[in-house]
Structure formats: structure tokens, C-alpha cells
């Protein structure tokens, strides 16, 4: 790529980032105005929500960069659970998907089963998970893994199957030993699809984190239900919006990793 196009690209990216923040600012302002007009307890002003959020998150001592207890006791544990379970699911899903995809018959038998399991609403399995693992972080992890596993498995199967005959012939004619086959040929070829599955399941992981926390009573989910029942609607709004920010940040981070890992791909359109 020549430097001029790189510079032009950077210019476009900067331009679109500016538009992004402008639109966001406009939306927040609109919210503020509508909330002032509506004057309802259920619909607090944006400035109040942000102030409450700052209060909750930034009430700590200076040596902790002002980060309040809520960050360490609520936000980070919630995130750790979601991301840990998601990572576990990724490892399991890619392994299972590779095995199923490499087999010529396994998907004939397991395909229907997996699409059935994917259609099971994970929320309704909560009672079963609670009985199995008790109320706590284990139950939350189980619920998240169960619901994020299937998209990863299905995408990995797809990806593993997308290795074309020419590449197989090429790799064989170049004397690739069997034990390097999966690592050197199959997984790199499947990587774009695997990442698509990982992105999808990351958003599901956040969803299930909240569900499990509402049901199990911990973390951000608990704060949302508590603030609702104690009529602290401003703080409730803050937590809900925080989920949006966290989801956006995690998705952006994963996209950055994907760009790094899949740097070999021709420039792709931004498939949000």
C-alpha cells in the first residue's frame, strides 16, 4: 500500500471518528433536553446520570486513580467472569468445532443436536444451573459457556470446512507433515470464520453475564435490579448505559485483535 492511500485512509478514519463523537454528543444533548421537558422520575436527565456514574466509579482515593470500590467490587468481577467464561468457551468451541469439521460424518449426526441446543433459551436453564453449581460464580460461568459455545462451534466447523482443495493439494505437495496440518493449514484458513463466531459470542457473554447476575444476585446485574427495587432510577440508568459502553469497548478491542491476527486479509469492508 502506498503512503498516500495510507494517509488518505487515516484521514477518513479520523473523519468518521469525529462524526461518531459528534453524533454521540448530539444524542446525549437531545436526551438532556427531552428529559428536562418530560420531567419524569423514570427518565432522568443525562447530566444527572453522568454525575451519578462519576460518583459511583470515581469515589476512590487518589492512589487508585480515584477508582471507587464499585469498580473493584462490581465492574471488574463481572467483566472477569464474562471474559473468563468466554475464553473458556472459545477454547472448547474451537477444539470441538475443529474435530467436528474435520470429520466427514460427525456433523451429519451432531448438526441438528447443536442447532437444537443453540435454540434453548439459556435463561430458562438457570434453575438447573443453580441446582448443579449452586448460586455463585460457577453457575454464572456455566450459563455463559453453555450459551456462547454453539456459535463458536458452528463457525469453526464452517471455517474448517472452507479449506479448498487447491490448498490441500498444495500443502501436501509441499510435504507438510500430518502433525502440523491443523496448526499450519486448517486453523489459519478457518480464522476469519472463527473470529466472526467469537465476536457474536462475546455479545452473548455480556448478555448472559447480566442474566446470571440478576438471577444469582451479584455484580452489575444485581445493581440493576437493586436500584430498580429501591427506586434509584438514575443509578439504574447509569448501569444500563455502562453495559453499552462496556460492550462497545470489548467489541472494539476484539476487532483490533482481529485486525492484528487477520492482517493478511485484503482490506475488508467494516462489517459492524
Amino acid at each position, binding site marked *: *500500500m502506498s503512503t498516500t492511500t495510507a494517509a488518505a485512509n487515516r484521514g477518513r478514519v479520523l473523519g468518521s471518528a469525529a462524526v461518531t463523537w459528534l453524533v454521540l454528543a448530539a444524542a446525549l444533548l437531545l436526551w438532556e433536553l427531552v428529559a428536562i421537558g418530560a420531567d419524569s422520575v423514570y427518565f432522568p436527565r443525562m447530566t444527572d446520570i453522568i454525575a451519578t456514574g462519576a460518583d459511583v466509579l470515581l469515589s476512590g482515593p487518589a492512589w487508585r486513580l480515584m477508582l471507587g470500590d464499585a469498580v473493584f467490587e462490581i465492574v471488574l468481577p463481572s467483566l472477569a467472569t464474562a471474559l473468563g467464561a468466554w475464553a473458556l468457551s472459545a477454547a472448547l468451541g474451537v477444539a470441538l468445532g475443529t474435530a467436528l469439521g474435520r470429520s466427514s460424518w460427525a456433523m451429519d449426526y451432531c448438526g441438528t443436536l447443536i442447532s437444537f441446543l443453540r435454540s434453548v433459551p439459556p435463561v430458562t436453564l438457570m434453575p438447573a444451573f443453580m441446582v448443579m453449581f449452586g448460586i455463585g460464580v460457577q453457575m454464572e460461568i456455566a450459563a455463559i459457556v453453555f450459551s456462547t459455545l454453539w456459535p463458536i462451534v458452528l463457525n469453526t466447523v464452517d471455517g474448517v470446512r472452507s479449506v*479448498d482443495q*487447491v*490448498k490441500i*493439494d*498444495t500443502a*501436501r*505437495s*509441499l*510435504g*507438510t*507433515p500430518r502433525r*502440523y496440518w491443523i496448526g499450519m*493449514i486448517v486453523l*489459519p*484458513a478457518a*480464522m476469519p470464520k472463527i473470529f466472526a463466531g467469537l465476536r457474536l459470542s462475546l455479545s452473548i457473554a455480556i448478555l448472559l453475564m447480566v442474566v446470571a447476575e440478576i438471577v444469582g444476585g451479584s455484580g452489575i446485574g444485581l445493581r440493576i435490579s437493586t436500584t430498580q427495587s429501591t427506586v434509584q432510577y438514575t443509578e439504574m440508568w447509569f448501569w444500563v448505559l455502562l453495559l453499552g459502553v462496556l460492550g462497545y469497548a470489548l467489541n472494539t478491542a476484539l476487532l483490533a485483535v482481529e485486525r492484528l491476527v*487477520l*492482517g*493478511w*486479509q*485484503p482490506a475488508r469492508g467494516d462489517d459492524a
Partner: protein
Amino acid sequence: MSTMLEVSGLTHQYGQGERAHVAVQDLTFTIEAGQLACIVGPSGCGKSTLLRCISGLIPATGGSVRLHGDEVSGVPDDLAVVFQDYGRSLFPWLTVAKNVEFPLRWQKVSKAERQRRAAEVLESVGLAGVGKKYPWQLSGGMQQRVSIARALVSRPALLLMDEPFASVDAQTRGELEDLTRRVQRDLGSTILLVTHDIDESVYLADRVLVLSKSPAAIVADLAIDLPTERDQIATRESEQFVSLRGEVARLLQSPQVQRTGENAPAETPAATTGTDDTTASDATAASETTAPAEATGAALSDGADTAEAADAAGSPDPTAASRS
């Protein structure tokens, strides 16, 4: 000269029983070390199957393939293949240099040595300095140069090329043909190249093997005694080239190649390509059972546009001959 490749009684059929399709039947030929041989035959005649059998990618159902005396079962270490579809043959997730180094990974070659050899071979195909790029950043012709470099890096005894220049533009094709002849001479390698392009086979080869329609069998084995130094314009204009080209074209149009005798193709009759030009033809074809076939051959050999002639000869066109 020693024998590099010995193919004897090679047969390959897909499927079993009634649904069986014989792609290659009882093929026997040898290639001497240091030769550049071209196999030319109509499209769909089983050339690719033949190449896959020779390279050990698929086991033949009959006969044997020997590479410098050793029976081929599985892909031999000192054999490399260049495929037509460079877009799919290069690993998109590896840089150009890493692609070229790839076959050396499985050999006892140090990392530094690998990099040195990759750079060296990239330079010899005219691609110095692009090692850090990814394949998609190169043009089609350059990508095919990369796959040629990758095939050459482990200094294979035999290089197989399956329609290697069929997916690049005419200009690039000429360059790649000259490149192939140059590296072959520089490295003294043995190359077996499969093509459907008559001009290309004559221009490139020391020797042209003409295959019949499926099931593939050898109908002629021509020595190409053009001078070693060839030139895209001058060589192609030379009388010798023109007459050789005509000879191969006529062979490809012969009933023997079209296999009209045994099983007349039942496909839809395409528009006749041959005119009624009945210039006397000294077709080398053996039994000339049908006059129209001869006429077609003659018309083709007179055709000014060589690419067109090649295409017409190469297409699995059950024209004239079969319907008389």
C-alpha cells in the same frame, strides 16, 4: 541422460462398476532428466488427473510411476507442483517470503538458511524485495511467480506444472514462459508442464506429448527442435514453429484424439467451427475416417489467430467429425 520419470501403464478411474469413469488409461512414457516436456490435450481429457497421479496426490488405480527409479506412493520429497489457481494455492495468511520458505520448514534447514534461500529464489524469479508483502498485494502474474519460487526453493528433481499460465493475461504469460525456460536452464531442473494451449506447448517444450480425449492416452510424442534461445516474437514467427504448431493442432483435431471411433459423444451438437476450406492436409492422424475432421484441422492450422486456434482445438467440442 538418465531417466527422471517413468510412467508405465498408468490408469486411473473414478468410481466403481457401471458409474466408473476412466480418466486415464494405460499411459506409458518417460521423461529424461533435464527435459522440459509439455503435455497438451483437449480440456477435460484427464490431464489434471494424470498430474495428480504423478505427484502422488492421488494413488493411481493401475500401473506405476517411478521418480528416478523409486516407486511413487504419496508425495515424494523432491517433487514440487505449481497449480493453475495461484489465488488459492498461495497461503493468504503467510507473507510472500514465508510462503516461499514453507516447504523448507519440513526439512533440516536453519531459519537463517531458509530466509537466505527464499530471498535468493525470489530474486531469481524477479521478485526481489517483495518478501514482506502478502499475496493479495501482488498482481496475478507476480503471485504465480511466487508459487514458482516456492516450488523451486527446495530444488526439486521434478517440477510439475498444471496449466500454470492459464489464469494470467497474455503479456504476463509470455514473461512467465520465458522465466520458466530460463530457470529450467539455470537450475538444470526437469519440468513436466500440462497445458491445453498448443502455442505454449511448442514454444516452451523440448518435447510435446499429445494426449487424446478422456480416457487420456498418448497419441504422439514430438521432439521440438527449435533453438534453445527462444524469443516471443521471432520464434513464434519462424517457419519451424508454425509447422510444429500446425502439426500439434492437426493431431488434436484428429479422430484419434477426438475418439470418434469408439464412443461418439452424445453432447449437444455445437455450431461447426470448420469452414469448407478443404486445403490439402497432411494430418499425421492415423486412420482418417471422416472428411469433415480433416477439413476442420486444416482450417485451424491456417487460422491466423493462434490463441483462437488453440482454444478451438482445446475445447471439448464434439463438432463436425462426430456427426458425419
